[in-house]
């Protein structure tokens, strides 16, 4: 620490909010320094290699390298892939499972489904707990939570002895109907803790109060499987930060795009499973609030994947319908934790183009990754990627590739595109256009999944596109979907980090409880709500967060009796009299009809609650960009020819993004280039810069 460079960022007169994101290849740091006297805000970024298996080393490394004084950071939001990596690489701990008598095989039986339906060589996903470590206890609850047979704990000592003997390091407990009444699970949990205080143990009700025993078992098992690893990681990270003088608040980014404390996250680390990807969507919602756009289709295009999510009325959608490793080829594993409702496809700048046996062009999902990377990197990559196609078409400036840091190897690009063009019977330019069009089409389909497929018309939304590749494709995608407006946020390549710094402390509670919606059932629903809210308040107050800082939003999950899928509708505050119940039912019919195109004259049933509790924890204050009076002409670079695929080749005006100022505007064809990203403005588009430096593209 004494080695810290004293000339760096010295500013007690400034607030420093930092975000770190541990990715597969790099650990990124972004921090925002807000100068109190000038109100000016600077964005600084740094990178270090990700350091598996001790990911905290990379985080500490990037902090040191950035020159930031750790002691001056006011808050640090941290996104990490430590959980998803441990699962993906099967590097969790040996886990034992305790279930209700007759259900130890639930984890292996799963749901019996086989998505790859013509394939007789399908292999079912292997359970995370082998059968000899799946044990049962006697005792049974009924669906309403009442006790059918009392719990018998007399076999537990022998089970625990076996687990010790076998080298088990974590135990998951999942008993039938514990979502309705956790009493049996609690008793087993306590007993295990008494018998074996050192072992890591989790019961399903601590994570979720939703029904479906396989899904809950899978959730508890995966949580137990990563718990010791995540705990160790978080302990080392916060310890290492403290040792280096960090005195600010450390928050961990959650899958529901909120943040939470290290202590709370350590209890149930599985909530970090989508830590990171979610923050960009939260950022898009916050940005929407800032610029007056409450309906947003948010799209994050990175190197390997593209992710999108729909934001309606300023609210990010959170669900607990989440699986890992699920695809057309595999059933995957469910995890019932609140996750932002997103669609992710293997489509990014590094996605590899290929031609199948029948002359069809495909792009992705294989990616060239960071090594060897696109052919243009000149690091031995021989496969053509979307980035290579964009270079070949002049959409990316070959002389300013990666902000001028890498010299684009155009010979490699041609060599990589050659075989694709040959297979398609096209020339190289046509092949490159094809790659861009197919990539765009894949992303359009993903955007349709989150909009049209759920009854939303994309034309009612603004496309907010970010990530390194967002600006490259956004205008074309919007045109394809008939959308009128695109916004590319300032510093789009690190927008997720901005989102992290805009996050609230947020917890989502999903609770299954069947209640009929008879006019006199308001009190029952109100009581259930009370129970959920009180539970949350107790939890927060135990952590020293005052009730005044917490705000709640509450939704009922309703459905037609006997249907499976429920629709969420907001529950109004106050007494739920007969009239309020009727209003609730009416809003269900409306929401249902929007999603499914019809409504039924059938009884409506209340299936459960979704309660969102959030508390502000000191956000980044967005600041307006200074206007120096620079002329638009001074931001320009030499024109060049850009191939707009289906719209032909145009001479485009080229602008330096960093020099653009609020109030500037210009028409397409144009390209805006910054160090981290390229924004392609199509003929007929009009671009304006808003007060915060975001780029608004209006389509004709």
């Amino acid at each position, binding site marked *: 620490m004494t080695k810290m460079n004293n000339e760096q960022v010295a500013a007690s007169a400034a607030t420093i909010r930092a975000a770190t994101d541990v990715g597969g290849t790099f650990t990124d740091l972004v921090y925002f320094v807000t100068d109190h006297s000038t109100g000016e805000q600077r964005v600084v970024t740094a990178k270090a290699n990700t350091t598996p298996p001790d990911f905290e080393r990379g985080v500490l490394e990037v902090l040191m390298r950035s020159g930031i004084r750790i002691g001056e950071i006011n808050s640090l939001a941290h996104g990490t892939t430590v959980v998803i990596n441990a699962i993906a690489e099967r590097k969790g701990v040996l886990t034992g499972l305790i279930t209700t*008598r*007759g*259900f130890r*095989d639930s984890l*292996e*039986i*799963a*749901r*019996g*489904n*086989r998505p*790859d*339906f*013509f*394939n*007789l*060589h*399908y*292999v*079912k996903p292997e359970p995370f707990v*082998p*059968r*000899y470590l799946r044990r049962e206890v006697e005792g049974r609850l*009924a*669906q309403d939570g009442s006790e059918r047979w009392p719990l018998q704990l007399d076999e537990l000592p022998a089970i625990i002895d076996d687990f010790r003997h076998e080298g088990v390091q974590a135990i998951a407990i999942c008993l*039938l*109907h514990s*979502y309705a009444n956790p009493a049996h699970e609690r008793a087993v949990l306590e007993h295990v803790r008494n018998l074996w205080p050192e072992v890591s143990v989790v019961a399903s009700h601590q994570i979720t109060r939703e*029904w*479906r*025993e*396989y899904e809950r078992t899978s959730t508890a098992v995966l949580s137990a499987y990563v718990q010791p690893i995540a705990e160790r990681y978080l302990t080392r990270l916060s310890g290492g930060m403290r040792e280096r003088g960090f005195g600010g608040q450390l928050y961990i980014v959650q899958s529901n795009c909120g943040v939470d404390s290290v202590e709370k996250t350590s209890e149930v680390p599985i909530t970090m499973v989508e830590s990171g990807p979610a923050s960009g969507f939260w950022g898009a919602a916050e940005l929407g609030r800032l610029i007056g756009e409450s309906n947003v289709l948010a799209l994050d295009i990175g190197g390997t994947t593209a992710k999108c999510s729909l934001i309606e009325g300023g609210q990010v959608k959170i669900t607990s319908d989440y699986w890992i490793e699920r695809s*057309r*080829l595999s*059933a995957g594993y469910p995890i019932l934790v609140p996750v932002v409702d997103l669609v992710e496809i293997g489509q990014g700048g590094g996605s590899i183009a290929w031609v199948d*046996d*029948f*002359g*069809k*062009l495909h792009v992705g999902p294989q990616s060239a990754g960071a090594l060897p990377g696109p052919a243009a990197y000149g690091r031995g990559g021989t496969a053509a990627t979307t980035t290579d196609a964009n270079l070949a078409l002049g959409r990316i400036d070959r002389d300013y590739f990666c902000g001028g840091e890498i010299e684009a190897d155009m010979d490699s690009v041609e060599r990589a595109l050659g075989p694709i063009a040959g297979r*398609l019977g096209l020339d190289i330019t046509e092949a490159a256009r*094809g790659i861009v*069009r*197919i990539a765009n*089409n894949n992303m359009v*389909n993903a955007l349709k999944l989150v909009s*049209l*497929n759920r009854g939303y018309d994309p034309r009612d939304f603004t496309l907010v596109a970010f990530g390194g590749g967002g600006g490259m494709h956004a205008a074309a995608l919007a045109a394809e979907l008939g959308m009128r407006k695109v916004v590319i946020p300032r510093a789009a390549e690190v927008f997720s980090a901005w989102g992290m710094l805009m996050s609230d402390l947020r917890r989502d509670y999903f609770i299954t409880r*069947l209640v009929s919606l008879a006019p006199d059932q308001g009190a029952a629903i109100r009581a259930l709500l009370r129970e959920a809210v009180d539970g949350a308040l107790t939890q927060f107050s135990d952590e020293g967060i005052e009730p005044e800082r917490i705000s709640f939003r509450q939704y009922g999950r309703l459905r*037609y009796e*006997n*249907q*499976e*899928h429920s629709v969420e509708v907001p529950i109004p505050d106050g007494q739920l009299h007969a009239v309020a119940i009727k209003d609730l039912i009416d809003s269900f019919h409306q929401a249902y009809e929007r999603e*499914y*195109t*019809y409504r*039924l004259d*059938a009884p409506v049933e209340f299936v459960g609650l979704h309660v969102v509790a959030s508390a502000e924890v000191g956000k980044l204050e967005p600041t307006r960009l200074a206007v120096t009076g620079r002329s638009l002409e001074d931001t320009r670079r030499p024109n060049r020819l850009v191939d707009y695929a*289906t719209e032909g080749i145009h001479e485009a005006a080229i602008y330096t993004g960093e020099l653009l100022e609020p109030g500037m505007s210009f028409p397409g064809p144009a390209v805006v280039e910054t160090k981290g990203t390229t924004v392609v403005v199509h003929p007929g588009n009009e671009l304006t810069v808003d007060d915060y430096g975001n780029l608004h593209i209006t389509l004709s």
Partner: protein
Amino acid sequence: MNSEAATDPITLDIIAGGLQAAGEQMFVALRRAAMSAIIYEVLDAGSAITDPAGDLVSSGAGIPTFVAVLDRAVKCILALHGREELRPGDVFLTNDPAYGGVTHLNDVVVALPVFAGTELVAWAANIAHWNDVGGMAPGSISTDAIEIFQEGLRLPAVKLIDAGRPLRSVFDILRANSRLPDFLTGDLWAGIAAARVGERRILDLVQRYGQRAVERAIDREIATGEQLARHRLRALPTGRFELEEEQDGGAVFTVAVEIRDAEFIVDLRTNPDQDEGPTNLSRDGATIAAQMALMNIIGLQGSANAGHLRPLTVLTRPGSVFDPTPTAACSLYYETRIALYDLILRCLAPHLGDRLPAGSFASICGTYIGGRHPDTGRHFTIVEPEIGGWGASQSHDGNSALFSPVHGDTFNCPAEVAEGRYGLYVEQLALSGACGGAGEYRGGRGITLDYRVRSDGCFLTLAYRRSEHPPWPLLRGEPGSSNYVEVLRRDGRTERYRAVTTLPLSAGDLIRIHTANGAGVGDPRRRDRARVLEDVRNGYVSTAEAQEVYGCTL
């Protein structure tokens, strides 16, 4: 961009992708909106887009055996109503095997002609299993039926919505003929909504790329599909392969498969006369069994189209069990269809290297339980297939507890949901402890599933196969075990069934469902010793079995 010029290969690929997505979106809509668990959880449903003439273009997920049902339905509607009579906004229904329904009366097809202006450009269609369409038994399925009239309401490709106007009389007839009219109404509207989703997506493509481009994309997809199928067929050994196999009821089914010149010919002409009971399979249904086997063998992923299926010829004899007269009972067709499918695989497996695994439990194990819900007093009906063990391959053990190979992304019902919905207790759902399926690679385990009945006056109907003749092994592996049901009466008696109709049950009785282990591949004595020990540790193989069958002393 507009229309006529835009037929470069990239555009055609994008349109084809759009048609595929439209089929899938239709399926998602159907599943999300359906009222019955058999549709939204069991996924006894399918969706497809056909060209104007009814040739299959793309299909959604669901049950793979439904993919080529919908083209038959469309063709039948076209033949009956005439293309000129169709109008935008029309919706048709069919469920009768003699009218393009292919399967049984419970499976109802909703088909919607898609018009761009005045021109027919495609059809959006879907099919789903309705819980009850009338007939002699609840659920419309009875092992006692001897003619189709006892199996419910026949819908001979009728119009349901006329140019956007619902024909109320037809809706009234439908409702009046079901024991569960509210379920029927919900499921019917789910089908209509789904077809309209398909329509919208197709029209989006027409608007974006022009009608000619969409037509060209369709033709190209089908041509490519045919090319692919023939290409894969050429890699197979040629010859004529024959097999006869005794079924549980004593009937002997035969098949001869000829593979030559990129053709796949399935000859079923020597099979027995049609059945007195409900196990007849329509000729269209027999064709689907052969299509399924073909798709498995040529190793295709995802969706099938008309082109993939062109190399197939199926020969049947009118009046036989695989080509019965139109009024033959057929509600249990599905066990005959999976029997035929399994027969074709068994016939070819020994000749195709490692392309096909050993025999699976090979039964739908359709289970119907109904009665009064003890908590709500309302009537409940379970209609569900069961999961079971799959056969081993030459490199892997078989999967345990999957739905049959003719199912796909089908989900079983969680015990926690079932207990509330049906008012039964699920006492256990475990992997089967039965012997069977040993091998160098062993078969997957079937299941044991216990339902405790909670009210008097309930009933049980089922018809399983591979109860007497277990799943077939390969290369000196062992056969699998058996599919059957035990009823453990409150007074201690135990009854065993492979088929029964409306068996009365009382509160306290236990229904114990056993499904078979799949068959093994290779001599069990050659199984890797470490794997046998692992199996013993995990309780997949008993100590005695390890010793006696695997020759592995511990």
